[in-house]
């Protein structure tokens, strides 16, 4: 398990528990009581630490290498999944994974940004940073969902759209704009879930939903704290201050009326108990989806458009 800096005390305790367990294995001594005591302490520390994570700590949790990714959610939540590929213009961008499948028995389109887990998959998925082809593929899949009346579920987890020469040449900004436009245009329910990092334009391209959910310790921001710090503070080391100022936590965004719900994470974050996380996400999506499918298709579109048209009107907050 990968431990974050602020989790060091917990890591030490868990190390001790492991040691004791090892001892009990070899010596046959009964130290279950001590283990139980430490276990309780770990639980308590985790709960209290995670109950008051700072925006910067949340940023680190949202980027935690062991955090479940889009492919994990697809595996857990979607049956009969059939991946689809390509933008039909230039190429296949694996930073955006997508396809058709069933969510609790109902046919849906799934689109998500995937960061990859190890060197090989990270390279394959370009660290979750999509190129124009990825967004054009997303648009294509949204249109497919629209045509066949399939609700669209998106999973957002990206540091941002890929900044590269080729990406610019092939119209990164146009591709993102068209993807946003496609989100706004479909006549089927669109539920977006920010599962880790919601990085700027590369994230909103897939997150203009009837319902936008965020995991408890995920973040969603116009710019990364590091980027913001280096521009406004002229000092990349001020990322902590930037993270505070940007109001990028799920809790802040709910308060600002930007998102529609927070999915609670297990104690210690999604990476500690992926199965419990999947269940929570499944339930949250399901409860919204069962409501949304009852709404008339043109109403779904109109309400979504109206919701985003109002954002910032009257100067929020």
């Amino acid at each position, binding site marked *: 398990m990968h431990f974050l800096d602020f989790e060091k005390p917990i890591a030490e305790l868990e190390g001790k528990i492991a040691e004791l367990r090892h001892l009990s294995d070899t010596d046959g001594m009964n130290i279950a009581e001590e283990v139980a005591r430490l276990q309780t302490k770990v639980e308590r520390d985790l709960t209290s630490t995670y109950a008051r994570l700072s925006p910067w700590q949340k940023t680190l949790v949202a980027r935690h290498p062991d955090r479940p990714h889009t492919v994990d959610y697809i595996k857990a939540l979607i049956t009969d999944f059939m991946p689809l590929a390509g933008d039909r213009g230039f190429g296949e961008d694996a930073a955006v994974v997508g396809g058709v499948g069933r969510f609790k028995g109902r046919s849906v389109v799934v689109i998500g940004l995937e960061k990859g887990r190890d060197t090989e998959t990270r390279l394959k998925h370009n660290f979750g940073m999509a190129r124009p082809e990825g967004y054009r593929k997303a648009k294509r899949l949204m249109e497919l969902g629209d045509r066949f009346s399939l609700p669209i579920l998106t999973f957002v987890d990206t540091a941002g759209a890929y900044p590269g020469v080729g990406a610019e040449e092939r119209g990164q900004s146009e591709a993102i704009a068209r993807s946003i436009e496609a989100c*706004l245009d479909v006549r089927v329910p669109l539920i977006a879930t920010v599962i880790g990092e919601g990085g700027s334009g590369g994230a909103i391209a897939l997150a203009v939903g009837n319902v936008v959910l965020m995991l408890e310790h995920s973040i969603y921001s116009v710019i990364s704290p590091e980027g913001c710090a280096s521009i406004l503070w002229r000092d990349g080391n001020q990322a902590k201050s930037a993270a505070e100022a940007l109001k990028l936590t799920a809790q802040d965004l709910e308060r600002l009326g930007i998102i529609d719900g927070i999915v609670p994470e297990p104690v210690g974050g999604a990476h500690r108990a992926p199965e419990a996380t999947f269940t929570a996400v499944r339930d949250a999506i399901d409860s919204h989806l069962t409501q949304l499918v009852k709404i008339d298709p043109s109403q779904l579109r109109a309400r979504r458009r109206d919701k985003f048209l109002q954002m910032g009107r009257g100067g929020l907050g």
Partner: protein
Amino acid sequence: MNWLTNFVKPKIQRLVRPKEVPDNLWHQCPKCSEMVFHRELEKTLRVCVHCGHHMRMPVKARLKMLFDEGKWAEIELQPEPTDPLRFKDRKRYSERLKEAQTETGLKDAVVVAHGTMGGLGVVVAAFEFDFMGGSMGAAVGEAIVAAAELACLQEAPLIVIPSSGGARMQEGIISLMQMARTTVAVDKVREKRLPYIVVLTDPTTGGVTASFAMLGDIAVAEPGALIGFAGARVIEQTIREKLPEGFQRSEYLMDHGMVDMVVPRHELRAKLIQLVGLLMHKNPAADVVALAPSARRRKVDGKPETDTSRPEPAIPDMAFDER
């Protein structure tokens, strides 16, 4: 006093000074470094007489050059920009806002104007780069929404002229949401089958390009304008190599199929009139067509030029070419 000390000023000072103050009689072209007399610069619509570089244009001058007789009406934008996050970096956002308002005389970075161009009614939303880098927050979003709604109401084409670094970080997520909001707005114009034309000027980057600015029915760019999603520095750091010549400039975008045309500033008004006339099935007033090429000097200050013997300033047609 040495005459040089009079005009060789740090760039930052030029940015913060009101444009009208004539203590800067000479301007240095940021591209060729030649000096241009300020009156000359006004006449040439802020295009360098030496190299044809298109310098950034204050929003009012921009509107003046586009509308018939340099006249337009502005709409009052509600609400006033606010500081929804109470954002503070090295300075408070509310202070930055006030400063920008004092410097530019504007409430925020966009002016929404309506009037006629070649006798045809149009709505224009134009950005002021000097207002916090033309960045997009809720008030800018509101301006685009208002412009789109006005265009629909008047059944007029919408022309948006961005000059913006992107989203306004000080409004955090709310500025990001303006990408979706402005997209809804310009789609309303398109749904009404009214032309939506974007004139990309220097610079158009970040969240602004990745939303309404790249969704035009027609995309026009000014020569040499920086247009792109990611900043050049970020890209260089990512790929760790030098960027190609002319990267993210108008001509480069045209080569890559991202814009319809690159139009020099002195032709912009005539081209827009032509475009609007064609898309709206309207014949522009005959005199406007005839006027287009030669009338440009007159439109600059909105009154006929008296000194006709004066030679026309040379503005090369495709002025800016880095290759």
